[in-house]
């Protein structure tokens, strides 16, 4: 488990994946590596681990803004439709009510806000996360399957790695990794 993967020289290296025994050692490793100067660290945890985002120095998520835009678009387009239909497209005398019966137009517009927000939220999340993406180099490591059960993993991309891979591997083991793998690029 501890042996690095045997690689043929022509395969390009995507980076390194290492496993940690628990959440605390993962958090400690992330902090140590950040101090070492690694910027593009990616961690994999079987549940959202509190404090990890801060340790990784992740930027604020754009999701609230995306959802807000979705909500505003949804609501205003429904209201605009109602206004246009009743005042311009096909005005009708309905029960003697005014053409612009704004109180009646609010409930559909409200539902438009919710629908727009939810759709933008879900599709926005996929877009921000770069999903769906069924293939990824880390999936090449069989042990990575534990990431969705009880494994805590850490990946460092090769593009960022200033030192020879051997240095990083020993550094990871020093930080308490229970396994280190070189991840091929596919």
């Amino acid at each position, binding site marked *: 488990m501890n042996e690095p993967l045997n690689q043929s020289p022509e395969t390009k290296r995507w980076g390194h994946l290492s496993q940690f025994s628990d959440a605390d050692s993962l958090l400690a490793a992330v902090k140590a590596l950040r101090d070492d100067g690694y910027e593009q660290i990616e961690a994999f945890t079987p549940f959202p681990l509190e404090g990890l985002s801060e340790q990784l120095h992740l930027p604020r998520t754009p999701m609230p803004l995306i959802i807000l835009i979705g909500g505003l678009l949804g609501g205003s387009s429904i209201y605009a439709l109602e206004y246009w239909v009743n005042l311009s497209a096909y005005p*009708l*005398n*309905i*029960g*003697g009510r005014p053409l612009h019966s704004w109180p009646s137009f609010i409930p559909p517009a409200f539902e438009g806000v919710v629908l727009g927000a939810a759709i933008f939220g879900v599709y926005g999340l996929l877009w921000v996360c770069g999903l769906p993406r069924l293939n990824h180099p880390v999936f090449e490591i069989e042990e990575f399957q534990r990431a969705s059960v009880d494994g805590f993993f850490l990946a460092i991309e090769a593009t960022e790695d200033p030192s020879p891979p051997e240095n990083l591997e020993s550094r990871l083991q020093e930080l308490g990794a229970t396994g280190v793998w070189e991840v091929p690029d596919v």
Partner: protein
Amino acid sequence: MLSESPNETSRLVDWVIPKPHFLESWGDARAYDGTASIIQPMISPLYPGLSEIELLASLLGNNPANGYSEVRKTWERRLGQEKNSSAWQQALADGVIEETAFAPVPLSIEEVPVKENSESSPSDEWDVIVKPDPTIWDGRFANNGWLQELPKPLTHVVWDNTAWIAPADAEQLKLSNRDLLEISHADETFELPVWIVPGHARGCVTVFAGYGRDVVGRVGNQTGYPVKLNSSSDGSVTVRPVGRRSNVVTTQHHQTMEGRNLARAGTVAEFLANTEQPEFAHPPSSAPDATMYQQWSYDGHKWGMTIDLTACVGCSACVIACQSENNIPVVGKEQCDMNRHMHWIRVDTYHKGSPEQPEETLHQPVPCMHCEHAPCEVVCPVAATNHSDEGLNQMIYNRCVGTRYCSNNCPYKVRRFNFFDFSDAFLTDPKLDLLSNPEVTVRERGVMEKCTYCVQRIENARIHSQVENRELADGDIRTACQTACPAEAIRFGDLNDPQSKVHETAQHSLNYGLLEELNVRPRTTYLTEVTNPKEAPQP
């Protein structure tokens, strides 16, 4: 025998000659004052047959018999012989032959003693009153679906006949509506369903004959109960509850107003006391006339209707007129039992006061009110019902998806729904196809329908006036119910025309809107019933 359709007699005879309908035959008749009239067929006979005149003529040897030539022969001295004699043409156009009335006979009227309503409990002997049925008469119209389904005055029973008794008698005999009552007279015994009628005299039973025929036709078979009385109608009988029930169907289950001012009434004395704002026509109401909305203006025509409750006698002629004009289907007893009858106008009956001695029995025809603030329109999700610029509450049948929300939200419940394909026969039966009015859409299954103020008549009148290059005049448009009303209780016209008859009644101090407290602003309004009761003698 000569018969329009197979019946009990035709089953027993050897020879039956088919008779055309009276609207298919030539004939003549005299009015109550003796004025003669030529009866002209409306259509040529659908099926071959002989009218009475033709049969008699052929028995006299005039073959081939021809109703037209027999009628011409009868009147040739008066109206001439030649084919297009002007006198003949005139008589046909007028409908009557002038100056054929008889001279009046002077008569004196004797006071007829009226039997006082007895308060005593009934003895074993009950009086029986036999009446022809109010809709199918002596049974000759038993195969007429319209008349079968026309709610009978007061009881609103359809497709059946009943025996009327007083509420107190019903209590004593422990009878409720639909219980079967055995009526025996000499060696005749028959059963009729009981109907309790407020105001009916005690110790007396009113039975309606005409039902229970054996051989009628598709519509009239298996309807009602036979009345078997050999003697004259003023005989006495014994009655006995049978302990079984019938499945008689009514279209109005409640006949009290529950303290609501629906059908309003007062006396002449009360009216004369305050002609400007009679209290009985305008009881204090908590509902304001205010609205938050800017009003739609109706600058052109503004159609409206008034119904005079004083004039209305509750005969239901308007219901049949509407049914024939608007292709309203007959749905049958079972569907009526499920409250799915289709009449666009109905005549409600309400009793005021105690059931034994109701102060008054009121009839209130209820068509669509064409509310200016129509609650039905607001709730339709597809705008299938909306307002025309002349104030008609329009129903767009082919847009209707059938949510029935409009009917739920109609305080008058005048909307009717096609729960099944009720109109199917209009399209598939070639005879019924002839029956339908080509100017009115036949509605399909799952669609809501209701009174249109006879919009086809409005449009026809408009087209005629445009052809004649003139303005629409008051009286050009007469709705079907209005034309049929024998008491002229219904007026229809333009509320914007100050000269119109309907404008006059709409502005009258006796005018009120049904459920006007809901502020739906009905265009159909009522004139309060005004009676002139004879003062009860002081004891």
